[in-house]
């Protein structure tokens, strides 16, 4: 359920979603989610976020893997 006291971190390629307490920097959220910063871009709506961007409670961010294989 949507929780406006938490940050929603969506990882669409892994089909998972995390609820983490904020406010926190993107790099800290990635560390908590176990994602290495050089393998993803992080977006909030139409905005691209830098790794030191501070995300507030109630926000939803998307962590998009950029690694292509084959």
């Amino acid at each position, binding site marked *: 359920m949507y929780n406006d006291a938490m940050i929603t971190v969506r990882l669409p390629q892994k089909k998972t979603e995390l609820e983490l307490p904020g406010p926190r920097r993107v790099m800290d959220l990635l560390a908590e989610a176990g994602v290495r910063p050089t393998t993803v871009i992080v977006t909030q709506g139409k905005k691209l976020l830098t790794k030191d961007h501070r995300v507030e409670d109630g926000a939803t961010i998307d962590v998009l893997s*950029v690694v292509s294989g084959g």
Partner: protein
Amino acid sequence: MKCKRCRRAEAAVDLPSHHAAFCPDCFFLFFRRQVKEGIRKLRLLDPEDRVLVCVSGGKDSLVLWDVLMDEGYETEGLYIDLGIDGYSDRSREKVLAYAASRGKTPIVVELAKEGIPIAEAARCVRMQECSICGTVKRYFFNRVAAEGKFTVVATGHNLDDETARLLGNLLHWQRDHLARQHPLLPGADGGLVRKVKPLWRVSEVETAAYGFLKGIDYVTEECPMSEDATSLVYKEALSRIEDRMPGTRIVFYKGFLDPSNPLRKGPEGEAAPVQEDAPEENTVRGTETDSEEGGGAPRACASCGAPTYTETCSFCRMKERVRKARSQRAARVSR
């Protein structure tokens, strides 16, 4: 964090490997400059070139097409429908939608119609899907380019792709592959078209950021056939190093490309052949070991006429193996 270039707008992209962070407008300038430098330094393209851009629906190839069009190159897109359930349909939709947004209609090759859909071919010839895919794609890249009078084929391989391949080739001391690995593979008489990788200086994060900020709608899901690809293991290792030591990847690759690097020569120190129609990728886990490298001009494949260094090109040999496997299966079913 403010943009390090204009110092006014809020940064959207941070690039530790360049000690920089950019707002969207300044990042567009930075990214395009990186691509242009990559083209200029290695003389990948001439302004008069007719460029066949190979597009998969993923971020790299669509971003490459976008940048080359914006830079004024004459381009057409080539999409190869691999015949992979669902994934190929979604990829094709992205390619067609992007092309339409730029007033283009891509050339489409359907492997099912060509008699060699990837999944079935992999089962028939017992090779890794990625090896088959590489062979088939290279064949059609060259064939479509030669038939369409394109002067060059461009693919969206980026710095991460190239360094992963370099690491794999080094770990297994694939000296013949090392000698061939380069963002420029010159063409040759006999219908071998020049191949270039203009994104060799930019990382996957950079192409993804460029695509996102430009509003390019690309396929974010991975090819289901590539889950076990060895290149992902090398990428993982390199990204761990890059996290700890930003900038290592570009230093690694630029050092490799240095003309004085002895690994850029063939195993015996002779000038290395530059194109072949065998897999370019590290195929240690695959079964395709019959390297077809050769010097001088290629000859025409006895079966299809495509340029090759052997009697029959690897695509035709693979197609023949698929045909035989199909008839054996049909014979078993009818018994």
